[in-house]
């Protein structure tokens, strides 16, 4: 039904881009909290040991050290798993980084439920809600490895704090080579006028698959890759509401506090249209294979198709 896509690792793209940046700019420093093999900051560590700081299993301290380095002119990338990089050090992100608007880029791997077998302690289903409630933070969920490299580069030259969420598994590549990321701008992935699917992260591939299937049924969906959650591309959302009259959002996150709630806020303020949410609803997730979990919680092309049909039935 839908074409197979090349898989690639977003965290590998991160690690490789860090090494490139390390060569280009001596002010780049990298921190980790005893997960450098998994986050792939170990690639940078191997090449630039002087500019790499492992903080051990101490995420709060890692964020504080990052802030001090940033206040001294460094461009700081700090990594851990998404749960630990947000939940375990939120107050430090708030007081040491966000309030003074320091140049710290939190790059969190292992976002969402596709961490799989490790279970709920390791499933980051609220990290974006947390990151989005840090005024001044840019929050980005790249759709794939290609966009990840772009986002990391953009963050390195854009002053101020970033939260960037990557995945554990290799994920389908949906951006073409030469793709150009622009912070705060949704990327249009497909045209359509019956409804719009707004997605980010690995749900972009699912959105494209859903749109493809729906097209076969005569329903033409616009697909937006809303990789930037903050600042949100309100213009693209308003256009989508106006031109397609119905919106479905799709994200690997709780409905609360993520993409869907952000889009809903824009929609009701500008052009109230029916929406449906493909997201987790106020529940923790459990051990299982990544694909099993995505299916169990409807985070699939099928889930998106049903949501589109529901939203179309409510379209005025």
């Amino acid at each position, binding site marked *: 039904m839908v074409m197979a896509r090349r898989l690639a690792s977003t965290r590998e793209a991160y690690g490789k881009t860090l090494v490139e940046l390390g060569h280009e700019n001596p002010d780049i420093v990298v921190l*980790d909290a*005893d*997960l*450098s*093999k*998994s986050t792939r900051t*170990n690639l940078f560590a191997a090449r630039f040991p002087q500019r790499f700081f*492992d*903080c*051990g*299993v*101490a995420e*709060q*301290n890692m964020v504080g050290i990052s802030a001090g380095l940033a206040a001294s002119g460094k461009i700081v990338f700090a990594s851990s798993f998404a*749960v*630990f990089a947000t*939940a*375990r050090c939120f107050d430090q992100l708030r007081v040491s980084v966000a309030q003074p608007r320091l140049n710290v880029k939190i790059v969190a791997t292992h976002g969402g439920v596709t961490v*799989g*077998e*490790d*279970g*709920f*302690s*390791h499933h980051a289903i609220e990290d974006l809600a947390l990151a989005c409630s840090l005024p001044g933070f840019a929050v980005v969920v790249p759709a794939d490895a290609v966009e990840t490299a772009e986002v990391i580069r953009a963050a390195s030259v854009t002053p101020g704090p970033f939260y960037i969420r990557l995945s554990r598994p290799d994920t389908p590549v949906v951006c073409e080579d030469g793709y150009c990321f622009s912070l705060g701008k949704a990327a249009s992935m497909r045209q359509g006028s019956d409804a719009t699917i707004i997605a980010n992260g690995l749900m972009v591939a699912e959105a494209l698959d859903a749109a493809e299937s729906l097209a076969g049924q005569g329903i033409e969906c616009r697909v937006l890759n809303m990789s930037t959650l903050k600042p949100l591309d309100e213009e693209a959302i308003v256009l989508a509401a106006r031109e397609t009259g119905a919106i479905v959002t799709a994200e690997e996150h709780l409905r609360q506090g993520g993409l869907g709630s952000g889009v809903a806020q824009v929609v009701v303020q500008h052009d109230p249209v029916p929406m449906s949410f493909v997201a987790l609803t106020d529940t923790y997730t*459990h*051990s*299982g*294979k990544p694909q*099993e*979990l995505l299916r*169990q919680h409807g985070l699939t092309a099928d889930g998106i198709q049903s949501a589109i049909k529901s939203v179309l039935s409510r379209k005025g």
Partner: protein
Amino acid sequence: MVGGTELVKEAHAGSSGNLSASAVLSSAEALPSMAPQDTEIEDLQRMAKNLRRHVITMIAEAGSGHPGGSLSAVEIVTALFFRVLRHRPLEPGWPGRDRFILSKGHAAPLLYAALAECGYFDVAELTSLRKLGSPLQGHTDRTRTPGVEMSSGSLGQGLSFGIGTALAARLDSQSYRVYVLLGDGECDEGQVWEAAMAAPHFGLDNLVAIIDHNKQQIDGWNSEVMNTEPLAEKWRAFGWEVLEVDGHDIGQILAAFNHAEGVKGRPTAIIAHTIKGKGVSFMENNPDFHGMAPTREQAAKALEELA
């Protein structure tokens, strides 16, 4: 092979520093505080090997999990579940039970193996580890698994939880004791030191922290990633009674638990010197096996070594 439940005491008399009494291992009246006879130690060692086999089999079958830090803690967990703890596997919620809290939650396979061998649930369940719908989650979930006291997986939280249960014992005039197992890398976490400061402040002599000091964390040796030494001095400066033992010597471990029961007014920290991956040659001191499952072949080889 020793049948698990045989080793389990349904309950035992608490307290007493009586080191000379001898007892039959399977007796329901066995005291935790006595010097075990050689035959008992041998039984426990056999159980330890048994748990190691379970750990390898479970993780290999699951295709993911943490062998290294499970294997290093085998003797500690064996000593606790098959000799020290007063517990009732068929009545996991028994209010009088001693509590075992696995703070380093990635060693869940080891805990599950011990619980199964004690009879909390069927040994056959073990192969469901990490599978969709299984009661045996990748990291512990107290709502799903009988005998699991605390949900974990985020490091550094267990000792605080242990303080809460130890305070509850005092409030309820219960004599149960609380044992918390931590990793040495886990001791990087500030919350551990918040708890380390609070437990002596609250005078909790019913609380024992065991640190599985295998000298490694994920990124390598503690000394290179984040030096925790001198670890014993840190716990001492925080007001704890501190003991150091060979964490693979069950006799030493039992003696330490026994000593802890006699300490009044403050908690005890047992620093157990261990080897990560202990018992499987190619896993020992090999950081690659912190969180990597053995292949089918590696598992076979490991089981051979553990035969």
